[in-house]
């Protein structure tokens, strides 16, 4: 092989080498930042205007033992991966002022999870899916564009045994749900949860 042929061969492989370098750097950062997918302290982990769709690309599901301010003030549009807060003993400001956030594909909670100001000013949120049981008061009324499936997920996750708790929803909830199903469907749904006060704001 001549030198010219060798140089051509090397040049041909440059994109491949570049991609491998990118992957290596991606792995190095996210393996470290996410503790190789293990439980991490999530306090303010993705908070602030600097986190956006370009740089937020988690490699693993998010498992945290503290969730205060996890996505506070961020500019991402989707949390992309599942978020498991069942090991978290605190719980304020999780999505506080994440006003670009449209999709939360899965959030895993348990009956002890608390929701202090989690969704304040989450005005763009449309899709959210809960897994587990909601056992404490939750206020998501800022998210006026929640889909029927999101509303069904929230209400469907409410504990049927707790008392003294309130779910606060946008005033659009009933119409959104009924328009996507049949008239009276919302009333039928919430009638299964007489242990909860439903507030609309």
């Amino acid at each position, binding site marked *: 092989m001549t030198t010219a042929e060798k140089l051509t061969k090397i040049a041909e492989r440059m994109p491949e080498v570049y991609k491998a370098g990118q992957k290596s750097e991606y792995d190095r950062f996210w393996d470290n930042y996410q503790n190789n997918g293990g439980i991490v302290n999530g306090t303010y982990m993705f908070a602030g205007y600097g986190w956006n769709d370009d740089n937020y690309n988690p490699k693993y599901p998010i498992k945290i033992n503290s969730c205060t301010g996890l996505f506070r003030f961020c500019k991402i549009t989707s949390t992309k991966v599942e978020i498991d807060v069942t090991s978290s003993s605190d719980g304020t*400001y999780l999505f*506080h002022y994440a006003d670009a956030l449209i999709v939360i594909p899965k959030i895993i909670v348990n009956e002890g999870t608390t929701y202090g*100001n989690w969704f304040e000013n989450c005005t763009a949120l449309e899709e959210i899916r809960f897994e587990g049981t909601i056992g404490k*008061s939750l*206020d998501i*009324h800022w998210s006026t564009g929640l889909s029927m499936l999101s509303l069904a997920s929230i209400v469907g996750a409410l504990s049927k045994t707790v*008392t*003294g*708790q*309130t779910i*606060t929803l946008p*005033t659009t909830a009933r119409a959104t749900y009924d328009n996507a199903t049949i008239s009276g469907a919302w009333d039928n749904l*919430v*009638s299964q*949860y*007489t*242990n*909860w*006060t*439903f*507030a*609309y*704001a």
Partner: protein
Amino acid sequence: MDRIVLTASEGMLLTNGEIYATRLELGDWDSPDNYREITMEEYNAILQREEDREIYDM
């Protein structure tokens, strides 16, 4: 049993000091006595105090 439904008057909100709403469908443990009406001005003043506290918390 039908739920007790509370609806705020025009330009007012219902509150128990923690929840602010225009309409409430009470759970079987809840009572209308737990709520009172406030004006939007009162609500905005509460929000301002909350915001001041949140900034302090950051």
